[in-house]
């Protein structure tokens, strides 16, 4: 059971170009009462941060048009966004190294399980609560 003792929803950014994957992951994030932003590629994700938007967690696919996931992660970290939890998500077995080298915190094989997402969301909540 994911609990948020202080009431503010977790702000999640979903970076995914495949509509079906976006649909399923969005439903999972809603299950945990997250506020959801969606980017269709790495460039859109970076633009969110350049526009001053803040997120608690980013779920990022690897292979996307215009800008890949690892490239976007690298740019987001280069903007000084070190507090946001970045999760690399991919069906590609070789994706973990690319994401971790780019600065992601966690890598998860696609498809994401609800329980796995719940654990990560709870970790984000605990971190937020500890900072208050």
């Amino acid at each position, binding site marked *: 059971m994911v609990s948020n003792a202080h009431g503010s929803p977790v702000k999640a950014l979903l970076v995914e*170009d*495949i*509509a*079906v*994957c976006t*649909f*399923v992951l969005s*439903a*999972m994030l*809603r*299950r945990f009462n997250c506020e959801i932003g969606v980017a269709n590629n790495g460039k859109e994700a970076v633009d969110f941060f350049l526009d001053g938007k803040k997120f608690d967690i980013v779920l990022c*696919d690897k*292979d996307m048009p215009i800008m890949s996931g690892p490239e976007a992660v690298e740019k987001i970290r280069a903007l000084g966004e070190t507090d946001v939890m970045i999760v690399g998500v991919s*069906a*590609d077995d070789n994706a973990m190294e690319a994401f971790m080298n780019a600065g992601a915190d966690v890598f998860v094989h*696609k*498809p994401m*399980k*609800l329980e796995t997402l719940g654990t990560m969301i709870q970790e984000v909540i605990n971190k937020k609560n500890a900072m208050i």
Partner: protein
Amino acid sequence: MVGNRIVSAPTLSPRSLRHRRRCRSFEFRPSLPPTTYSLRPTPRRLRPPAGSPVSPELIAMAAVELKNQLNAHIASMFAAGFLDKQFQELQMLQDDGSSPGFVSEVVGLFIDDAEKITGLIAGLLDQPVVDFDKVDALVHQLKGSSASVGAQRVKLSCEQFHSYYEAKNRDGCVMALALLRNEFYDSRSKFQTMFQLEQQIEACS
């Protein structure tokens, strides 16, 4: 008609109709008390008049039977490898009550996506010079989408495709696409049966 006049048939009173029926289909049945005579049933199936309500008990029985059929169908899809555990994740997301119709919506998205992608791959393989990078990207997309809904056979077919476009083997890709399409059409048919049963269950409620 008689001559130029339209003559309506004489109307039969209910009493005369009952008399006619008794004379035509009378049968004595020794199992019944001697003063009771039963009528042989007419060949036509008796149906309630149109618009008459069906009993709630019958509707409930139909719903139970349909649910049993649906559960058996889904179980057979798992047993035959059409579905994997990811489908159960989707069912969990629907079963909490906040997203009714979620499974049918996401599977519908997958089916539309898969139809479009397989068509695009066929088009690419038909070109004089095949862009295998684009084929790779499309197969990857279909693999991700099938994995997200738990369409295991389609996902596995995408994985098998990989070696052919890696080797830039057009004939191999054409064969792999044919296999992929077969698996997709079979999966689509199974999903459609599932949703038809769900709609019938919904109609009973």
